[in-house]
């Protein structure tokens, strides 16, 4: 069954069809939620909430939009709201405690775990808008057009957010960036 058929059947309340849609996208949604929330349990719960929302509002989905764009729009909004709640109630912060990138030395570059941590910390330090576009662009490979639709903004806004995000990341991750490599 192709995606269109699965969506049509899900719209009619066919749960097994919806399950197939969930299984197709669950890892992407969990991983993106994890990149926002940095807590595995919270990321899984967020993904479950997102799929529930998707099922309950399935009749508002229109076929002109790519399903993944619609799904990730709901997921991104959910995660951004969660982050806003965390800022309001700082004690509910459950992020994993990561050391700051400055503590990493370039000579440890080969240690994959250290590198992972440095990258995560750098991304986490970005303002929400820049972080969102970096996650969608670098990890989910959404087009600029799709990101604009997803975030309800113009193409030039996406362009400038990505530009600023990449400039910031270059600055934070400077010790890891090879300046004369191509």
């Amino acid at each position: 069954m192709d995606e269109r058929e699965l969506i049509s059947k899900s719209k009619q309340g066919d749960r097994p069809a919806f399950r197939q849609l969930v299984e197709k996208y669950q890892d992407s949604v969990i991983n993106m939620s994890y990149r926002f929330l940095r807590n595995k349990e919270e990321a899984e719960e967020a993904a479950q909430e997102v799929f529930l929302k998707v099922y309950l509002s399935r009749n508002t989905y229109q076929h002109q939009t790519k399903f993944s764009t619609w799904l990730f729009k709901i997921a991104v909004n959910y995660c951004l709201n969660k982050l806003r709640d965390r800022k309001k109630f700082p004690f509910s912060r459950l992020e994993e405690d990561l050391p700051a990138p400055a503590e990493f030395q370039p000579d440890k570059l080969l240690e994959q775990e250290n590198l992972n941590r440095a990258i995560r910390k750098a991304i986490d330090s970005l303002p929400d808008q820049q972080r969102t576009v970096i996650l969608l662009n670098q990890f989910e490979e959404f087009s600029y057009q799709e990101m604009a639709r997803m975030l309800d903004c113009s193409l030039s806004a996406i362009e400038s957010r990505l530009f600023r995000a990449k400039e910031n990341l270059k600055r934070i991750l400077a010790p890891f960036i090879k300046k004369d490599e191509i």
Partner: protein
Amino acid sequence: MKCKKVIKKLAIFLDGQAGEKDNEAISNHLKTCQCCGQEVKELTSLSFLLKQEKESVQASPYFWNKIEQAIIQAETNRNVLDTIWEWVNRTLIPVGATAVVVLGLFVGTNLGSVIYTNIAQILNQDNSSLAQQEINQSLNLNTLNDFPQESIGEIYTGLLAESNLPEQR
């Protein structure tokens, strides 16, 4: 295209999503500008670096089951709400509407009889000329007496007044 604009457009250019015009202009610019060439190297290196972060989270074995349970719960709640709403529509709204009509009729009838009784009481009072004035004022009947002098209307009301006067006195 100037360096400042090229640098701002480099991300979209490297992602292969710049428009045809921009693509050509940036490609031409990069052939001669070392400074922007350096920026390309750094951005490419950054993209490469970010892709190194491969940590991924797997869904737990009960991932779907929890979603399904939540769906069933939500649909049950929705059915209960639908039933309540249907009952409100079928029963409460018609009953409410009937009650409003009945209340309207009751208030209307009572209000009518109260006004009628008050006027009758005023008319039955001893100082009836005063009462007549009051009624005339409240109902704006005085305007009917303002006929031009010696017009038929004035003569007619005059005759009426004369025939009433002796009785009133």
